[in-house]
């Protein structure tokens, strides 16, 4: 495994004068994480039991509150504390000497440094990406099981509780543990470098954000092993099905979303502060690469919207565990209230899962077409337009929900209008490609794949925006087809493009170009064979989220299942390429794509503190073909062995 460049002049941690035995037990790390997880889990258990005994609530030993408080809240806090996520803040709060100059938690010298609370944005970016790829494969495996069951009508392999759990966990993992955090990982690695900054604004917060993620993911997967089975009410968790008709697995989902959401909010705040305050001199907003713009706008969406899903999941969970009646109609609750709050987050979340991909596309398309981005300012402004409009369209998920019917036409108008800024972006990318000098490397292939698939997904989105069409196809396989064209053909293709694009910068090695192209073509073909026919069976009358269906849909479902297995297999090519290239790929030059943005002007992988001196930005980042144009002036590069850490 390659490491980011070691920095030999990093200040060593002050020597700790304890015996080795005591240091292992009490020092931040996995041993302390193990016993502190158990300890805090025990304390959580104790709190519940004492409170119930004190209030004389029978039975005192009640599974639901115990699991919630002890396993899903207290134990993860213990894990984080044991790993050392809070050490600095605790020292500071207790008035003990902190170690601001201690960069022992910075940079990676061996693979072990990826398993620590590391504050280096580049290490955190790679931690994010490897973790999300793991959950991508878990979620993909669940999808394969779903398709196996759906290959024939009737029930073959699993019962309906398991089946409903499979598609619910599949969606939750892909959304909360793959697409959203994979973008956060890519941006974590690239944004500070692109800004000419040494790191993110809050490196310790950044480390904490990452370590919340595995907790959320493990919680969602673990719900399969909870008594009664996994949550089986879909990733949308509609009440009252999810709040009162589900086994305790539903609480695993409610709480998993909280951990993932907290991670998202912290990261977004970090990006906002970093982008606003840590741009290199000369890096005005109109000189920022579009990836930075994309993450700026995404972070605005995250910070404003994510608290809403947190609220919806808390209320749903309270109804489940504490028998409140936020959504219980028999006691004055309002089931549709859940949907409004949920979609007030989850529609902007669609853009949270798309805008960073738009950013990656702008980088990749400009670099591999060897041309400046066409209409740079309009590209940035259309991102802002999507942010604003994105908050005014949520109820288009609810055209048939029974909400006030007058709300439908205004929501339709905003929904249709949001196609305009999205269209501007598509047309501007096409104009960027036009007349360029196209280099068909893997990232560019995925970008072209994205353009064509996202256009189909966008057009089916316009169809869904029209209320009468939506009324007919709502909650059918047409929706399944649309969401996969947008989130797989859209977001996932851009994630693949981004991973291939920055792979040399992250690992210092080149990926295998032939395997990359093979991966693209297999994915592109299998993707279309899998998801295009879903439009048809949906319009014809097959509802989504069903374990069984009418025999007239049997042939197409068998076809879709076979194609989906091909799609699953295609991602193994990606995995093999990533692993073998990371270990044995040819050494990458610092700028294999001849790109102008700042991350490519430093070594691959970059030095621990990114730049010898903070660069001076003098122009646009996309001036391909402009004679003598420069994006930034960097201090003469020294080899990273002699680079010094800035104070």
């Amino acid at each position, binding site marked *: 495994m390659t490491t980011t460049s070691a920095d030999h002049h990093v200040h060593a941690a002050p020597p700790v004068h304890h015996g080795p035995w005591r240091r292992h037990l009490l020092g931040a790390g996995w041993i302390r994480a193990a016993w502190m997880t158990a300890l805090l889990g025990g304390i959580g258990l104790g709190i519940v039991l004492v409170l119930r005994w004190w209030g004389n609530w029978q039975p005192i030993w009640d599974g639901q509150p115990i699991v919630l408080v002890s396993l899903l809240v207290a134990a993860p806090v213990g894990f984080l504390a044991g790993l050392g996520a809070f050490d600095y803040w605790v020292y500071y709060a207790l008035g003990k000497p902190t170690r601001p100059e201690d960069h022992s938690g910075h940079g990676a010298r061996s693979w072990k440094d990826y398993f620590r609370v590391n504050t280096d944005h580049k290490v955190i970016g790679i931690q994010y990406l490897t973790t999300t790829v793991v959950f991508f494969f878990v979620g993909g495996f669940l999808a394969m099981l779903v398709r196996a069951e759906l290959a024939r009508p009737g029930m073959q392999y699993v019962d309906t509780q398991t089946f409903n759990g499979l598609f619910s966990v599949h969606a939750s993992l892909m959304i909360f543990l793959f697409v959203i955090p994979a973008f956060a990982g890519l941006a974590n690695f690239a944004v500070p470098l692109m800004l000419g900054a040494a790191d993110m604004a809050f490196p310790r917060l950044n480390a904490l954000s990452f370590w919340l993620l595995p907790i959320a993911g493990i919680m969602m997967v673990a719900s399969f092993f909870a008594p009664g089975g996994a949550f089986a009410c879909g990733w949308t968790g509609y009440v009252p099905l999810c709040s009162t008709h589900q086994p305790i697995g539903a609480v695993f989902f409610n709480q998993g979303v909280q951990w993932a959401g907290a991670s998202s909010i912290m990261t977004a705040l970090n990006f906002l502060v970093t982008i606003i305050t840590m741009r290199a001199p000369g890096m005005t907003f109109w000189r920022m690469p579009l990836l930075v713009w994309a993450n700026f706008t995404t972070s605005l969406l995250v910070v404003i919207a994510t608290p809403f899903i947190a609220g919806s999941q808390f209320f749903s969970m309270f109804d489940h565990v504490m028998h409140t009646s936020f959504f219980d109609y028999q006691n004055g609750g309002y089931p549709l209230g859940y949907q409004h709050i949920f979609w007030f987050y989850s529609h902007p979340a669609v853009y949270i899962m798309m805008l960073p991909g738009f950013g990656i596309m702008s980088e990749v398309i400009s670099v591999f077409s*060897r041309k*400046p981005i066409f209409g740079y300012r*309009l590209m940035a402004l259309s991102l802002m337009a999507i942010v604003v409009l994105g908050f005014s369209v949520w109820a288009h998920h609810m055209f048939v929900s029974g909400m006030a019917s007058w709300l439908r036409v205004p929501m339709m108008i905003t929904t249709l209008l949001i196609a*305009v800024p999205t269209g*501007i972006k598509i047309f501007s990318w096409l104009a960027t490609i036009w007349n360029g000098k196209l280099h068909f490397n893997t990232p560019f292939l995925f970008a072209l794949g994205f353009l064509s698939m996202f256009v189909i997904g966008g057009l089916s989105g316009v169809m869904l925006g029209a209320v009468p069409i939506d009324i007919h196809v709502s909650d059918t396989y047409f929706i399944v087809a649309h969401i996969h064209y947008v989130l797989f053909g859209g977001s996932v293709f851009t994630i693949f493009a981004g991973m291939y694009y920055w792979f040399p910068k992250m690992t210092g090695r080149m990926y295998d170009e032939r395997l990359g192209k093979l991966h693209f073509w297999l994915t592109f073909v299998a993707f279309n064979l899998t998801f295009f026919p879903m439009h048809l069976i949906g319009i014809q009358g097959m509802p989504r989220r069903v374990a069984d269906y009418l025999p007239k849909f049997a042939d197409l479902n068998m076809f879709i299942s076979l194609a989906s297995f091909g799609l699953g297999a295609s991602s193994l090519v990606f995995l093999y390429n990533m692993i073998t290239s990371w270990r044995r790929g040819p050494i990458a030059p610092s700028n294999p794509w001849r790109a102008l943005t700042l991350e490519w002007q430093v070594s691959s992988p970059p030095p621990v503190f990114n730049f010898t001196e903070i660069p001076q930005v003098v122009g646009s980042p996309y001036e391909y073909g402009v004679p003598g144009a420069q994006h930034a002036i960097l201090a003469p590069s020294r080899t990273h062995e002699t680079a010094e850490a800035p104070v």
Partner: protein
Amino acid sequence: MRRGSLVSLLGIGLVAGGIAAAVALLIPWLPPVASKERVRIDDVFWFTVVICIVIFAIVAAVLIYSVFAFRAAPDDDSDGPPTHGNTTLEIVWTLIPTLLVTAIGIFSAVVLAKNDALGKNVFKVNVTAQQFAWSFSYPEAGNVTTGVLRLPVNRSVLLDLKSLDVIHSFWVPEFGQKEDTVPGLHTSLHITPTKIGSYDIICTELCGLGHATMRSTAIVMSDAAFDKWLASQKKAAGGTSAASVSGAAVFKNNPCAGCHTLTAAGATGKVGPDLDKLPQWAQQAHQPLESFIRTSIVNPNAYVQPGFHPNIMPPFSSLPKPQLDALVQYLIQSSKKG
């Protein structure tokens, strides 16, 4: 732009648009039409599809042409022309899509208003959804309740939807219209059936373990046939006595078949225990058959069959005694036969 490239661009666009149009026309995308509302929905569908095909063809043409025309030679390290933008072009591709989506929006709003407008002489049906079955009652026929929806052809029908437990959604693909049933809320759906026949009613909102099999049938009848049926129902509803209640009818008019298998009634549900084997289950529970069946209907959580979950079956404690008696006798008879 050279003339040659314009011609090939146009050619590719026409081919791409032609292929997309062929896909749209040759595949029978939409299910058969059986309501006035579906006709209008289909109009919006095709209007939007035509616009989509044009946009798709333009994008595909530019993309495919570029891939072939602008490919860099392997050793070509030069850059493309530094074009930064074109204000006219940018205004055009902001304005034209705005106009197109506005057109779609206006057309949709008009159709929506027409589809929601009730006709004269509205026929009302109360629809009740519960896990995992539909039941329909007809105020015009003394609120008689059936498990199958019967509707008169060419008459404006207003479905008053409610749910007893979780959210469900009422959809008949041939009618096009769809609406959720929400517990604690009355929602409604307007349909004007235009074609005599029988159609599948499908629940489209995930409602629990039996969601996939929560189906029923909508039968659209001629005016004469429908009036005759309605009259017969009125008569039956007026003259209900303990003797005339048939257990088979109670089984059919309640949601039993949504979850249970019972060969005698043609029920094939798999969510709950197989009712053909009731004697065997009663034996396992160490209970006499009759009281076992009765308790299981009125209070399903009293004994839960191994391998099944509690709280899935709703208690049918409000079933009138004559109906309950008839249902229990019917189940004893049918399961012994099975």
